[in-house]
Every structure is written in C-alpha cells, then in structure tokens.
C-alpha cells in the first residue's frame, strides 16, 4: 500500500521534528524547552491529521507535557515488580507523570507479528539520537504502520 501523498509528507515532517528534537538535546542537554516545543508540535500534527505512530516512538514522548524522554536525562526509568510481573516504570521529571510497561521476556513477539512485517518497508526502531554532527539518516517514514 503506497499511501496517499499528503500522508507521506506529513510523516516526513513528523520524523524530521523528532530528529530535530534529538539533535537539539544532543547539542545542549540543559535546554529542554525547545525539544519540548518540537515534540508538542509533532503531537499536534499527528492529532490533527490522525496519523498512527509506532509504539516504540510513542513511548519516548511524555503524554502529559510532551517532552522527549531520555532515560537519565529527562526521565527516570526503574524496574519494579508488581503482582509477580516485571514492569518498567518511566517517570517524566517535568510533569511527574509515570508510564508503566510490562516487561516479560516471553512476550516479545508483538513486533514480529505478520502484519507488522508486511508494512515494514522502513525499520521499526526509532531513529537514533544524533551525536554532534548530523548524520544522514534518511527521513523515510519510520512511523508508518500498516
């Protein structure tokens, strides 16, 4: 499924904003306001155009204050046990909002389901945060999901 043209441009824009936020944070770890602004713009665009995003990308954005979550820098990540299962708890440092993810070694198959494989023209992992120089990461739809 090729997908309509407008969506492709929109997805490119989303991915550009995401990489730009990473770039800004890489340059200057103390200035989170700009990264937050970019992520907020991103979220508004996705909301306006109703675009689906890959869950691995969604997890790195805080839902409350829409800042970019980087464990160690903007958020804390702990592992807890709750009711006999292992959860990973991510807490955003700005709005104190926590997210919990189930962490079960037996259940790592959701990314390999056949529907995900059909639509994965691009890689399913989020773009790496850029170090100092700008790497030529192709901004090709990392978030599009069939």
């Amino acid at each position, binding site marked *: 499924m090729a997908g309509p043209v407008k969506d492709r*441009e929109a997805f490119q*824009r989303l991915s550009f*904003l995401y990489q730009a936020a990473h770039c800004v944070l890489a340059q200057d770890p103390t200035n989170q*306001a700009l990264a937050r*602004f970019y992520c907020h*713009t991103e979220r508004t665009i996705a909301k*306006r*155009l109703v675009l689906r995003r890959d869950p691995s990308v969604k997890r790195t954005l805080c839902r409350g*204050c829409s800042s970019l979550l980087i464990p160690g820098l903007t958020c804390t990540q702990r592992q807890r046990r709750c009711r006999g299962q292992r959860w990973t708890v991510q807490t955003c440092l700005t709005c104190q909002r926590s997210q919990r993810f189930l962490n079960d070694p037996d259940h790592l198959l959701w990314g390999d389901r056949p529907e995900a494989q059909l639509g994965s023209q691009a890689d399913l992992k989020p773009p790496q945060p850029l170090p100092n120089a700008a790497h030529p990461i192709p*901004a090709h739809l990392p978030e599009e999901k069939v």
Partner: protein
Amino acid sequence: MSQQAREDQLQRKAVVLEYSTRRKQKEKKKKSKGLSARQRRELRLFDIKPEQQRYSLFLPLHELWKQYIRDLCGGLKPDTQPQMIQAKLLKADLHGALVSVTKSKCPSYVGVTGILLQETKYVFKILTKEDRLKVVPKLNCVFTVEIDGFISYIYGSKFRLRSSERSAKKFKAKGTVDL
C-alpha cells in the same frame, strides 16, 4: 363514587418530600490530558538563558533541515518546477531554516537573518549570528527562505497559523499579496 375516586387519586399521588442531591465530589481531575494552563506556566517556551548557547550549536539543526528538504523535494536543482517546491514548502516544517526578512512594514525588522527556532501562531523566533533571539511578528512581513539555489518568498500575513495547523490546511490564493 367521585369521592372515592378523589380519595384514590389523593392517596396514590406521589408526594414530593424534601430531597437533597449529593453531588459527586466535584469531578475528578481529568487524567492530565490537557493541562494547558499549568503546562504553559512551566515555561515550555524558551527562556533567556539559551541565548548563551551560541549560534554554532544550531548549525547541525540547520544541516538536518537541509537534508530534510532535499529529501522532501527529491531533487536539487534541475528542472523541477518551482510550483512543486512551493507546494511542498507550504506543508513542510520550517524549524531550523535560514530565514531572512526582506520586506517589512517596520524598517527595523528588515535584514534580520538567522535560524528559525520556534514558530508560534503570529510570530517567528529567530536566532541571529550574534546570538540574539529576535522575535519577529508575521504580520506584514516578507520572509526569504533559501534552499539550494531556490529562493522563496513567504508572505507572513497569509501564514498566521500555528505550524501544526499549516500542514493540515489548504491554502487559497485570496486577496492581494502586498505588505
């Protein structure tokens, strides 16, 4: 009979006594979906301290933007019609672009050049080479964006939207394009 009927009616009538409704304890705090006022109070926007972050720190951002635009248009300079580039630019994101103000109703804004850091509804925030954050209103201003030899003029008066809304909106040519 009528008296019996009347009595019946009286006896079966529902009489409303005093009542008191207990309001559910004041709707619980919404699950923080949109803490708008509180969000803004946390100064999501820029603060002045980053002015000490030099212009050079944002150059990689500019490189990233250039690659993004090149990728978006899919070609450098050959025979791509300017129409396509313009149409794509309308929906594209301008954060990190090198913009300069060519014409403006207020002469002190003309000539401001720098990297676009933030775009809000009515304003561009531009960081100049001398590390000064300039806040330029979009009204009555013409901005120049240059990419790979293509120069486009952006009429700020038509662009008075948040950048996220811009990609969702279709533009019509309406009215005169004058300052």
